[in-house]
């Protein structure tokens, strides 16, 4: 097992390693490189790092130009600014153009904490997921982030990578095999399924333990690849357990929960409870206080799973 590390740290470290072997990689940031951790790459390869200042729209366009000229640009900022602020730039210059641009949003969700709602990206998955050609990856820990970034550099096409400010406990060890479009069962179970993404995976692990104490066997699935979604794994969970609880540090509208709902309602209707921001903005506070307040902590996930089982039994 590896140590707890924030996914944004793992992003910076991996880029700096990859930069050595892959000279086509260039990195852009919009005055937040110390926070997004692209500064780790910048320190090693200053000639391939471009801080465009507080100008995210221009950053996305420059990244598109780099891709046209054969480079592999990673453009980072806080997830709110890297997606919502520049949605049209990403839509036309990146997604419609189908260019090899990697958009990286750090500080996703309530994990951003004290900065409050303006800085907590809670609609970014919904926005990026709606764009044709765009893949959306939300890794759970350091190992998964490293493998995701390596995969992004190796495979052409637009990708949105979502990282988090907080340290996350290690979920995976070095034997883990990340594949875009694939989810992973990290704890098998037969009563109910919990499908989580990003920082919520570690909370789902805790929730599964709480459920176990109550005699409930939860299948725990990590879904880093929100688009393309591992539909087979979702449908298997829908068929083999009483229902699914989705967990994301994001609005319940348009994110992982919505992707699961779309899949099961069309292909195998099943019970679904969505954990996430319930059509609300976040607020300032410590992340743990926020997760509790918005019913997104381990206790809330476990309660939701129990509730789902009870309702199924009625």
């Amino acid at each position, binding site marked *: 097992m590896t140590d707890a590390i924030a996914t944004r740290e793992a992003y910076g470290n991996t880029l700096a390693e990859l930069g050595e072997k892959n000279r086509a990689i*260039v990195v852009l940031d919009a005055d937040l490189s110390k926070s997004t951790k692209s500064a780790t790459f910048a320190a090693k390869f200053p000639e391939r790092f*471009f801080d465009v200042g507080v100008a995210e729209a221009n950053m996305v*366009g420059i*990244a*598109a130009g780099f891709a046209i*000229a054969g480079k592999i640009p990673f453009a980072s900022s806080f997830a709110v600014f890297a997606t919502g602020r520049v949605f049209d730039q990403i*839509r*036309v*210059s990146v997604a419609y153009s189908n260019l090899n641009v990697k958009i990286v949003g750090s500080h996703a969700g309530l994990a951003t904490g004290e900065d409050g709602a303006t800085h907590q990206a809670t609609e970014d998955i919904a926005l990026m997921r709606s764009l044709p050609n765009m893949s959306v990856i939300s890794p759970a820990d350091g190992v998964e982030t490293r493998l995701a970034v390596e995969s992004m550099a190796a495979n052409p096409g637009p990708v949105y990578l979502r990282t988090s400010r907080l340290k996350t406990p290690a979920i995976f060890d070095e034997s883990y095999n990340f594949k875009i479009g694939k989810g992973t069962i990290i704890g098998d179970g037969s009563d109910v399924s919990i499908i989580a993404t990003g920082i919520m995976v570690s909370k789902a692990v805790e929730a599964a333990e709480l459920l176990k104490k109550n005699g409930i066997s939860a299948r725990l699935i990590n879904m880093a690849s929100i688009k393309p979604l591992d539909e087979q794994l979702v449908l298997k969970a829908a068929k083999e357990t009483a229902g699914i609880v989705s967990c994301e540090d994001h609005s319940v509208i348009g994110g992982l929960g919505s992707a699961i709902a779309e899949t099961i309602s069309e292909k195998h209707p099943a019970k679904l409870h969505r954990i996430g921001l319930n059509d609300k903005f976040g607020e300032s506070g410590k992340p743990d206080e926020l997760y509790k307040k918005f019913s997104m902590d381990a206790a809330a996930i476990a309660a939701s799973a129990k509730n789902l089982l009870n309702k199924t039994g009625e």
Partner: protein
Amino acid sequence: MSKSIAELGEISKTVRREILKMITKAGSGHPGGSLSSTDLVVALYFSKMKHDSGNPTDPERDKFVLSKGHACPLLYAVLAEAGYFPKEELSSLRKLGSILQGHPDRNKVPGIEASTGSLGQGLSIANGIALADRLDKRNSRTYCLLGCGESQEGQVWEAAMAAAHYKLDNLCAIIDKNNLQIDGKTCEVMNIEPVAEKWMAFGWNVIEIDGHNFGEILKAFDESKKVKGKPTMIVAKTVKGKGVSFMENVCGFHGKALTEEELAKAVEELK
């Protein structure tokens, strides 16, 4: 492909006829701003730019980004004239299944560098291309054509700041200053003047020319190559609808196709 001024004038006439024909055939499109930019783009593709229609992705090519994407009938006519695809394609403009979309798609048309149409994004893309060419030590230049109404987009000024900051002397932008936009005169809708002074203040080398005088156009592009340490902006004074008497300086022809009768008259004037 360095043509004489007389030859460029003939090519411009042909291109203008093709633009109007294809837009009338399509029943919609943007003729006004295509005609105002024609001489500038013809000068690039048939005199100044290093490019090869047989090898449109050659890394050493000069690149052209049409930031004012709605003027794509012009770019389509120029690319067809330069041999990037058969001229017969031009009649498919805006039709279902055509490579010639209402706004340019880089994945459909050989020779189109950037998909544009949402205004204000092209100069940033041109910045990225110019930075990449410099990183790879390529002796290539990037050109970017903007509209004057387009300069109202904030992203243009983000890109203006960045190009000067990065000292992109391999970048040359052109503003097609025809002084009209969809809703009326640019100075009345949202004044962009003084344009030349703005670009100078942003750290650019600025050259003001008559955008329909090939002597001035060619000289400006030559000058832009000589300037070191800063990007060049060519402020080209143009006439919207240039070349057709009843279209010149008429705002109504921004996004409207000519009727068959109007087309016949226009083609006659462009002989």
